[in-house]
């Protein structure tokens, strides 16, 4: 056991000293896995379609530019297309878009400056630290989220119109109604009604919106080449905050009394229990945020890594690359099916946990354990 442990440490320290730099993979000039993975998972100011590799090895990126909207107190509002930056090679209107190469070349702190950040520069081209730029651009994630929103509203409004005209009410449902009605009934009967009781009608639009919005954004993110909307912590954080606000608005006096004064608990335990209960009010939506974000981003990274394996091996030798391809593709297709399942599952879990938390907040007066019976018999019927 000690031998295993010491061998383990030996190997770890071995790799630590053999590569003192550790952060760039300069040996793989042909394929930079980290750049590809983070380029897909993080947010960008354009829709990157493909790279054309010319004969001299230079990469010419082909992409769809998106509007860049910048605001700073000193310079006011600036709006232009991201093609003016020419993928980070030129500055425009005294703004510079950072790329990984620039961050290394200018020796900027890698924690403070990330790729695709836009910073203000002065006339000489050096970074002007005093100008705080607020980046309100229509980035890749924003555009894809808006597209998902338009698609979602269009589908829902069109089936609502059909229902109003009687299709699906007096005669059998047709088309998109047939696709969505079972799902909507499922959310109503399995998620809303069991957790919210009689008052489910008030919360049903919110729960349905959350479910379908997360689901459609998850599914759009699975299309190859699309942006990773739900795997973005800002997106899930906003959803979590909205769910938190709805939960807070549904609380009543009993909920807070149970948190700050749990019934039937001895005084010593209360000192521990009350802080834990209070923190759990905030931890529950936080867990919702992290769960959705981590599931989606992990799935995307797995898929990209599996495909990148082909190119990593291909860098070593062409035969190894071709040999890896069938296994990598088979595994990727398998993971893709799991990701579709995870897309549905995570939307369902977010919605259901929100419904559970709202139900817990709304709980009314129920029988506490501290009322006495005259004859000392328990409440439940006992077989004699």
């Amino acid at each position, binding site marked *: 056991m000690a031998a295993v442990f010491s061998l383990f440490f030996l190997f770890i320290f071995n790799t*630590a000293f053999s590569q003192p730099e550790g952060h760039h993979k300069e040996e793989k000039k042909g394929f930079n896995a980290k750049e590809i993975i983070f380029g897909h998972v993080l947010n960008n100011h354009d829709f990157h379609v493909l790279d054309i590799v010319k004969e001299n090895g230079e990469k010419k990126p082909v992409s769809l530019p998106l509007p860049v909207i910048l605001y700073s107190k000193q310079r006011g509002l600036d709006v232009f297309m991201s093609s003016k930056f020419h993928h980070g090679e030129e500055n425009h209107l005294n703004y510079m878009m950072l790329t990984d190469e620039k961050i290394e070349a200018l020796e900027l702190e890698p924690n403070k400056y990330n790729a695709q950040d836009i910073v203000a520069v002065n006339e000489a081209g050096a970074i002007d630290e005093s100008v705080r730029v607020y980046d309100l651009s229509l980035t890749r994630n924003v555009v894809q989220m808006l597209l998902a929103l338009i698609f979602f509203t269009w589908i829902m409004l069109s089936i609502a119109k059909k229902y109003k005209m009687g299709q699906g009410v007096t005669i059998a449902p047709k088309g998109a109604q047939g696709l969505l009605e079972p799902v909507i009934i499922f959310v109503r009967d399995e998620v809303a009604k069991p957790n919210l009781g009689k008052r489910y009608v008030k919360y049903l639009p919110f729960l349905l919106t959350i479910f379908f919005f997360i689901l459609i954004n998850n599914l759009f993110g699975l299309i190859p080449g699309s942006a990773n909307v739900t795997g973005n912590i800002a997106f899930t954080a906003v959803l979590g905050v909205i769910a938190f606000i709805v939960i807070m608005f549904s609380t009543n006096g009993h909920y807070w009394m149970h948190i700050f004064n749990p019934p039937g608990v001895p005084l010593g335990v209360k000192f521990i229990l009350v802080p834990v209960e209070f923190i759990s009010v905030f931890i529950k939506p936080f867990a919702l945020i992290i769960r959705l974000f981590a599931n989606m981003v992990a799935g995307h990274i797995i898929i990209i890594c599996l495909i990148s394996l082909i190119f990593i091996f291909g860098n070593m030798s062409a035969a190894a690359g071709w040999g890896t391809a069938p296994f990598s593709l088979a595994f990727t297709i398998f993971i893709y099916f799991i990701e579709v399942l995870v897309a549905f599952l995570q939307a369902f879990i977010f919605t259901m946990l929100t419904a559970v938390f709202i139900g817990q907040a709304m709980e009314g007066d129920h029988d506490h354990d501290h009322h006495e019976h005259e004859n000392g018999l328990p409440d439940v019927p006992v077989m004699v």
Partner: protein
Amino acid sequence: MDLMTVLLSTPLGNAGGAVGAGLAAVGAGIGIGQIGKGAVEAIARQPEASNDIRANMILTAALVEGAALFAIIVGFLAMVL
């Protein structure tokens, strides 16, 4: 303090993140395996409740996986930061 900063600026941070994520995967595997075991045994005892049991199993598995993914995110942060 110097030894710590030297160690953390090397790929030891990457190795630590990877080991942590691997342990999280082990935890998730054990947890979800126990859920599956309980669910399958319950279905064997009462096959007509299989739909309810399946719904509960998927819900509990997602919660356990959420906990494992917390650890994976921390491992990820250890690698990146």
